């Protein structure tokens, strides 16, 4: 599974192996990420999809080593970025990676930006810190960056404070900061979820254009299946702390082989299909991570479950050379369109 992910033929940039991040809470141990492995190639766009509590954001925060401790702890695994094992680095060494080589943008730009500093100051800070630019150089570069992310009248906007910008513009500023040091990897964690659809479209296009131009790899973390379909070459579907299905986008959306992926695709009403009278949701609730069932975590909600699923939790099984599913019954699983009325 390790080497077949060359969707774009690039070099492997990031290898995640058996990553485990647990949170120790009063209610018990929450295994938020419990054995996640995947590869990401240079310049590639990878999607990580799943619902709340599936561990997608914790995966991203673990890559950046930003897990609050206590209560959280990275319990094991490897994160190898450009051949360097990040989990073993000292905090000082890790600071040289964050922002410079790997950067991240979050859902709510207002809480990510410092409200009492001008946006110019916030962009130049990164440039001075990581690239050792002088104040003047950094200011000029900051203007260019704002211009690049499509903020009009960039030089004067540098003196604005975050509250003077709209939500979409703030997210553009976040992208400018994130890309300011030419990172090799940009992680976008629900970066457009809080935005209106027309603004979401603008921001996604800016992100795609810039990462393509700069050769930056992009990890898109979202619950929105449409966003991933449009922008990602490959997709990992997460559920209850693990990747349950992995493959190129066309396979995941066209011929899903995990019951959870099928359920997700059946749950959303779609503009590209005839209107239906009824949706086919996944039954039951998202499980409590402190008390997962034995065997496969999806079994209580699954229509394909067999006896074995209650005992053995399947690892990712190869469906084809570019498609894996963590389901014993994957060969029987399919998304039937005629089930729709």
């Amino acid at each position, binding site marked *: 599974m390790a080497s077949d992910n060359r969707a774009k033929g690039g070099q492997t940039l990031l290898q995640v192996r058996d990553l485990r991040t647990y949170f120790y809470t009063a209610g018990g141990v929450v295994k938020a990420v419990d054995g996640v492995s995947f590869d990401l190639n240079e310049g590639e766009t990878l999607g990580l999809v799943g619902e709340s509590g599936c561990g997608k954001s914790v995966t991203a925060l673990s890559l950046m080593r930003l897990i609050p401790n206590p209560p959280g702890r990275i319990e094991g695994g490897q994160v190898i970025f450009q051949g360097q094992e990040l989990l073993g680095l000292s905090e000082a060494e890790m600071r040289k990676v964050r922002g410079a080589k790997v950067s991240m943008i979050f859902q709510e730009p207002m809480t990510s930006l410092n409200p009492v500093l001008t946006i110019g100051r916030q962009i130049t800070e990164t440039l001075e810190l990581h690239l050792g630019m002088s104040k003047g150089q950094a200011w000029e570069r900051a203007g260019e960056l704002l211009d690049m992310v499509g903020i009009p009248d960039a030089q004067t906007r540098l003196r604005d404070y975050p509250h003077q910008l709209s939500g979409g513009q703030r997210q553009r500023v976040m992208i400018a900061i994130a890309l300011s040091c030419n990172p090799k990897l940009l992680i976008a964690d629900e970066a457009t979820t809080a935005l209106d*659809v*027309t603004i979401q479209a603008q921001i996604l296009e800016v992100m795609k254009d810039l990462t393509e131009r700069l050769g930056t790899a992009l990890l898109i973390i979202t*619950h929105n*299946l449409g966003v991933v379909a449009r922008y990602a070459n490959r997709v990992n579907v997460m559920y209850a702390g693990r990747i349950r299905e992995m493959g190129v*986008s066309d396979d995941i959306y066209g011929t899903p082989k995990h019951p959870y992926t099928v359920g997700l695709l*059946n749950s959303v009403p779609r*503009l*590209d299909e005839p209107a239906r009278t009824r949706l086919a949701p996944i039954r039951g609730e*998202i499980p409590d991570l402190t008390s997962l069932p034995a065997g496969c975590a999806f079994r209580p909600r699954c229509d394909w479950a067999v006896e074995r699923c209650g005992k053995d939790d399947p690892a990712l099984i190869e469906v084809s050379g570019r498609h894996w599913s963590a389901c014993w019954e994957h060969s029987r699983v399919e998304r039937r369109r005629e089930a729709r009325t």
Partner: protein
Amino acid sequence: MTAAIRSVAGGGPTGKSAPLLTVEDLKVYFPVSRGFLLQRTVGHVKAVDGISFSLQPGETLGLVGESGSGKTTSGRAIMQLTRPTSGKVTFEGTELTGLNGSEIRKMRRRMGIVFQDPYGSLNPRMTAGNIVGEPLIVHKLFSSKQEYREKVADLLLTVGLSPAMANRYPHEFSGGQRQRLGVARALAARPSLIVLDEPVSALDVSIQAQVINLLQDLQAQFNLAYLFIAHDLSVVRHISDRVAVMYLGKIVEVAPRAELYAHPLHPYTKALLSAVPAPDPALERKRERIVLKGDIPSPLHPPTGCVFHTRCPIMTDECKGEVPPLREVSHGHWVACIKV
């Protein structure tokens, strides 16, 4: 314009029966004041600026738009939770805007509302049973404690919860279950209309689908009319009979569901539809996308003429001058654009 309003207001999908709800030229302006001791009004936010529509019994009208379009304020103004600045709201034959507080409370028995945030809209110190049963107490809809308990148990069952959950508090419920509680409360007093303000947008997709199915079942069971307010165009298409698109306080297009999604006419509707990515990579690679420039203008200083002209791809100088009227271009399909 008045004639146009009348016909929009009167034209349901059937056009025969008397509408349950008629909204005519509804306006909600919020004053903006400056100064500390000597406060003066320096302007108005035109949150809702002259909208008209009607709703038949048992019908679902989807109201879509982005933040600041006025869709939530419209819902609140119809319920008289926010008093409209001007315009008429006629519900079950009664004109609501002129009523006093106690008369309105009586009318509200027939109208329920479900809010977006299942965490913020339920009192954390009330049990689920009391949350659902409160409307029964307010409107005195039971004669004995026994009857009250039975009605509450019945309501919980109706929305797919167990009557045994009546003694639990909201924090013991998941997001989807809380939204079911909100629906049960809205149903308690047997309304004929429910305003659903983004009822599923805070929920995960698998849970969202469950709640949507529940809403459709309840509508069939109780012949409810829904005013379904949402920003998600796919969900609105799924649940609505007719759809109205709002932008900066105005309805820019109204049409029966199939017509609106198959033949959108207003440039804003077109852009909105093209901005929704489909969960199909092969389709997405082929699709042309209209990406609008700029941000939604502030409703404090809306653009002159057509409110959409600052972002419109087909704008000409004429659009800056006159406010385009909503006019009927085919049966039941209304659009406010002079270029169509």
